[in-house]
């Protein structure tokens, strides 16, 4: 069952790998290169799941997360935070702000795929 997935990250190579992995799972993938574009894409394309980086130009991942969670119309959007910031404090912050899952870079592709599947199955 094909789902819409939005990848928001400013690292081109990571985007390429994520895009490849999600497409291989048969999902419809969109990409945004920074926070602002990511938030706009969430609003226009209503993805089922967002893979969201934290350190990004213009608007950081936490801000995007907050904005999405503040919008009741976007309530069903699953958000997976994926970041190179591995500290526990940041992980807790992400979860507290309403992220559905938090993975740190470098990530295991298998875990990521499983986690995405799990989140999408919840819908």
């Amino acid at each position, binding site marked *: 069952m094909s789902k819409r997935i939005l990848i928001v990250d400013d690292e081109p*190579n990571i985007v390429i790998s994520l895009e490849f992995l999600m497409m291989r799972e048969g999902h419809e993938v969109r990409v945004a*290169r920074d926070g602002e574009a990511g938030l706009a894409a969430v609003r226009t394309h209503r993805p089922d799941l967002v893979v969201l980086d934290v350190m990004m130009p213009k608007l950081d991942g936490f801000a995007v997360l907050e904005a999405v969670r503040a919008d009741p119309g976007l309530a069903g959007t699953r958000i997976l935070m994926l970041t190179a910031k591995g500290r526990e404090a940041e992980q807790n912050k992400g979860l507290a702000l309403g992220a559905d899952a938090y993975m740190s870079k470098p990530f295991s*592709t298998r875990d990521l795929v499983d986690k995405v599947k799990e989140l999408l199955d919840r819908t």
Partner: protein
Amino acid sequence: MINGPLIIGISFAYLGLLFAVAYWADRRAEQGRSVIARPTVYALSLAVYCTAWTFYGSVGRATQNGLGFLPIYLGPTLMTFLWGALLLKMVRVSKAERITSIADFIASRYGKSQLLGGLVTIIAVIGVIPYIALQLKAIAWSFTILSHYPEVRMPVHGDRPFWGDTAFVVALLLAAFTILFGTRHLDASERHEGLVAAIAFESIVKLVAFLAMGLFITFGLLGLGGPALPPIEGSAQLKPLLEPSIAPFADWFAISLLAGLAVMLLPRQFQVAVVENSDERHLRRAIWLFPLYLLLINLFVVPIAIAGLLTFPDGTVNADTFMLTLPIIFEQPWLALLVYIGGLSAATGMVIVETIALSTMVSNDLVLPVLLRRWRRRPPAADLGRMLLTIRRGAIVVILLLGYLYYWLAGEAYALVGIGLISFVAVAQFAPAVIGGLYWRGGTREGALAGLSAGFLVWIYTLLLPSFAKSGWLPRAFMETGLGGLDILAPMALFGLSGWNEITHGLFWSLTANIGAFLFVSSLRAPNAAEASQAGIFVDASRRTALASAPLWRGSAEIAELITLAERFLGSVRTRAAFMQYARSRGLDSPDALPADAETVYFAETLLSGAIGGASARVMVASVTDEEPLGLDEVLNILDEASQIRAYSRQLEQKSQALEAATAELRAANVRLQELDRMKDDFISSVTHELRTPLASIRAFSEILFDDPEIDIEQRRRFLGILVSETERLSRLVNQVLDLAKIESGHADWRTEVVELQTVIHQAVSATEQYVEERGCRVHLDLPDESAMVWGDRDRIVQVLVNLLSNAAKFAPTGSGEVWIRLAPADAAWRVCVEDNGYGIPESDLELVFEKFHQTARGGAKPGGTGLGLPISRRIIDNLGGRIWAESPPEKGATLCFELPAHPGNPTDRRPDHE
């Protein structure tokens, strides 16, 4: 209108007022609301210095030698500058040791010697009784002159029987006053509240009277009303007043010194300044208020003297009486009365305080030691306290009667009228023993005895006997030729010293003999145990607190005997109370529980000192205790220990200060370290973040390639390419982190060589050629012909240039990028600028780009760098003594520039560093 009965009535009324003031102050003190515990009252009581001799005599002195009256007040004024140290020390010692008089002070200092106390008392009595007589004479004279109002007539001495003589009546009244308010307690170290209050009151009265008279006369002189005085003409008499001079200087100096010493050492001055002092902080006000008082009371001396000489030009009126005769001749009865009361104040104040001081000395230092000797054979009566008071009261009466007797006998003799300064010289003999004792540990009892005796004998020879000769009591020839007709021994030109006035001459020789004998005899032996321990207390008075009067006493004593002894003098109520208080201060609830140790014995001795003086107290205490004499070595050891303890505590203080400073430094260092730690954490966090990003790509693609063998070859190659480039990025990052760490830690090796910038620019261009071409970028060079030489490390400069070039190429638009490299001189430096045609840098980021891991996404794209290139470049350029910065003109790309100081040398000098 002024007649005898009126004057007598007013005199009695005034003395009655004094009694009332004293009575009131004593009552207040009993209620615990002391009037004298005020600094102003203290300062005013010091003005007992200004006697009738000042009040009437200053004018007389001024008529004779102009400003010659001034040193008597200038000396004390100058001396107050030293009070903060000298008098303060005297007050502290006296409080701690319960000193009762100047004799007690000197005796205590030199091992509590009864002999010394006795000698000081004798000198004081002989030196001062004529001075008391002078006051009585002033009272009698002023009474007689005033009673002739409105006629001006000089009194004739001895025209009345002594029982009808004012001076005699006044002497008896003063004796009554002094007994009443001066011997209320046995403890002479206690303050006499009523007496001091009365003295302060008298100081105000005499000042007011003098100022009133001065203003009246001065207004007259200036033609502003007041008396009509003859015009001032250049009469010979007025010369010293109208053309004041301070010549001869030696006399000015000597009399200033003399008065400066007298103001502390006269028995009455010691009494008010030291014994009656209730709080050493009062000194602070006295230090300016007392000189101010002296200034005010001298303000009108010269005008009054001039007016007197103008009014009585024929010399029939004694200049010492101008204060009184001027208001009489100008028919100012009330002013004359006021002046009379002022003079009475000055005289009675002096007599009262001097008598109380002398009587304490006579009873404690002359009579008591004799009695003590007698008591060894025959036990005394039980209530010694009452007996002592009786002795002291007797002494008061005797001293006043002696004063009166001297006045009666001397009459108009020079030995009376000239006694003021002569008396000062006698008490100045105490100076070496007192001042030397406060600052020098080496003085001994014999030294002090020798000094005092020598000075006193010279005083008798050079000042007292000549004054007798001038009075006709000794053959006048004595003055000229001296003892045995030897000219060299002429009392007024000793050893041929002439040209000074007699006071200067006498002071010089007596003090010379005194100091010489004091130093010489003291040097004959080292201070013994008692002297050394007292020296410690006196010399260290400013530093020492209660702790240190560490009693130097060893032996056995019975507490009951000590208490019994004290009771015999002080009465049982006072003794029990004092011992009770002392026991409580040692944490015991009953005096009987007190250990009979050195401290208790010391306490008992000090308690007794207040009543009978230090020397007698020591003898009395020794009579009931069994003292084992301490050897000098032991005393010195104990004193040494005390001074070592002081030294230790000083060291400790210094060390604790150093410790505090060190703590503060450590705290600051800690703050710095924490800051550095935080920066390091931030750095590590940034580095890990930067490491995780390429690692994430590498891991993801490796896993993808590993898991999925089905991926087509094109995709596979692309992924492998990413792997390679991310690996390169990773190793570049690691290298740069290490490089930065090396530069920052200062461990980088810097070569210094002459570098030609054109060469390194070419080098950097060729190093980045491939990357630049890949980006489709064109590089333009704008270099001068002249060799641009700088000092520096060639490889590092290339590194910076490569950084700037690849940055520029990176941010220039792909395919149409243009990069300019410009080299130009700038003052004493060479400037290199690298410019691109990209999006530029926002104004706010111009400095931020040099911070670690700050990566600006210019034009929205994430740059592929490590975020360390520019920070490293900045550190390199800083290290080479240059500067690097970013510019970004609007609508243009970014420009990064650096400057390096130009190498001054000739380009041809440089080493061949071309490759």
